[in-house]
């Protein structure tokens, strides 16, 4: 049942030009970032050869690419998640789901997986770029995998937040702007103290960027993974509660 809903969500994304436009634009920007990163590496290559324990291709090409990819996804995710529930609410199609023999959890998780699989397609296309370097050189695949895992975890948390915001309102644009605001806040939250004194531990822990950076360095720590899973589960739970409250509205 979850997959029925997920499948329809993904299909209707591709029925609108939005999904294709996003795929095209994002791919173009990724390609540009990737090529400029490869260019940097080429320029540094001769000097790197003389160093002991010099950073490899993955450090110089992939890590900055993925870091920028996450920023781009921070801008894109709200656009994809905004209509998921708000549009159904506005077109009064939610009652189709409400009167079918399915639970609220199935509705939310189904929609979540549908949107997430679209974003994973985006990430898959991105991953192909560094993998294409395998033709000419060796890559640190472990580091690449850690980076991909990090990116996947980041977008799964982004998507959950977006779906929750979409469940709050009837206006897709309002959902988009609030999602964007919250994502950006979580991204920059540890900047507050970072100019002078070290950022407070709590703010650093809350920051999305902080946890992502260590994964990009190839550092797989369960704290980071749990952080993203917690955010995902928390916001999906909120969304289920919100949908339930629709029936109880006073």
């Amino acid at each position, binding site marked *: 049942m979850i997959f029925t809903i997920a499948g329809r969500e993904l299909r209707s994304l591709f029925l609108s030009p939005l999904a294709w436009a996003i795929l095209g634009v994002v791919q173009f920007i990724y390609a540009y970032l990737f090529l400029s990163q490869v260019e940097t590496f080429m320029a540094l290559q001769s000097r790197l050869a003389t160093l002991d324990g010099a950073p490899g291709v993955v450090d110089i090409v992939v890590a900055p690419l993925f870091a920028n990819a996450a920023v781009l996804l921070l801008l894109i995710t709200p656009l994809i998640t905004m209509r998921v529930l708000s549009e159904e609410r506005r077109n009064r199609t939610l009652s189709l789901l409400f009167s*079918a023999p399915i639970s609220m959890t199935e509705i939310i998780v189904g929609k979540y997986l549908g949107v997430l699989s679209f974003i994973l397609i985006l990430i898959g296309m991105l991953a192909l770029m560094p993998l294409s370097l395998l033709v000419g050189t060796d890559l640190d695949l472990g580091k690449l995998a850690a980076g991909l895992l990090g990116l996947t975890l980041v977008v799964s948390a982004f998507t959950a937040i977006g779906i929750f915001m979409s469940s709050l309102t009837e206006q897709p644009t309002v959902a988009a702007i609030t999602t964007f605001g919250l994502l950006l806040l979580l991204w920059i939250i540890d900047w507050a103290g970072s100019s002078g004194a070290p950022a407070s531990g709590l703010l650093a822990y809350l920051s999305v960027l902080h946890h992502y950076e260590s994964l990009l360095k190839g550092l797989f720590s369960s704290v980071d993974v749990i952080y993203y899973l917690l955010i995902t589960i928390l916001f999906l739970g909120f969304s289920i509660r919100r949908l339930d409250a629709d029936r109880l*509205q006073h």
Partner: protein
Amino acid sequence: MSSEALIRVEHLTRYYSGTCAVNDVSFELARGEVLGFLGPNGAGKSTTMQVISGNLAPSAGKISINGIDLLDQPKAAKAEIGYLPEQPPVYRELSVDEYLDYCARLNRIARKHRARAIDTARERCGLGEVRSRLIGNLSKGYQQRVGIAQAIIHTPSLVILDEPTVGLDPIQIREIRGLIRELGEDHGIILSTHILPEVQATCNRVQIIHRGKLVFSDSTECLEKDLNVTAFTVRFQQAPDITALQQIAGVDRVEALADGRFRIQHSASNPVDDLLEQAVSKHWRLSELTPERHTLEQIFIELTCSEEHAVTHGDAA
């Protein structure tokens, strides 16, 4: 109360921010019955339907469908319900076939039965010609039919239709009414409307709801009987003796009113011809003859327009 009631609603109450939209409504429906829900705008028709379809939680009360409690086992109960809300819940970007396929999956119709269920629903609602068109490009009437197809695709035992004939042309309305009667043979149907002849044409039970309260509940058969009590008022300028009127064939009862008016109740055979003949020959000088209309409309208006009215069931007829 029979135990095999398809749906039983007990003391259903629903508040919206302090105002009481539905107040202590109880009724039940058996298989093969078509129940018409009547009421002016804002009377609580839609709210009641949303509650019994599981789209809204009741503030108080109990709803069981086929003996399954809607609040305790929502999944099992909802499998027995098909619901068409006021606005058909259709996805504009899907074609009719894609949409019905999605609905069939949502209602957990097994893969091998799915194609047939879709075919049946499509044929019943006359959607064969538009099956591969996008729902967003269809007219309102066709969208409404898609909504009905969605409600009956899993052959639920209870079909709830909220104003199913809104936006349809007269021919489509007739078709949909035919469809409702056909469905009513083996499903239970609850439909809301404010078109009174529709109720008389399709339903075998009527309930009128006003300000959240059930003010009238009767079968249309009984109603017809009441409606068949026929009477007319006559006025003569030279009023005859009341016994002379009583002796006319077919007259059951004569009441003398003011100003030389008489209210004449008659049985099946209409005594108007005889009355006119006598009036001419005996020079009563007839000046007025008004047949009395006692229709559902009258009951409806009586019940919903008066400020103070009795809330007992069925006594208003």
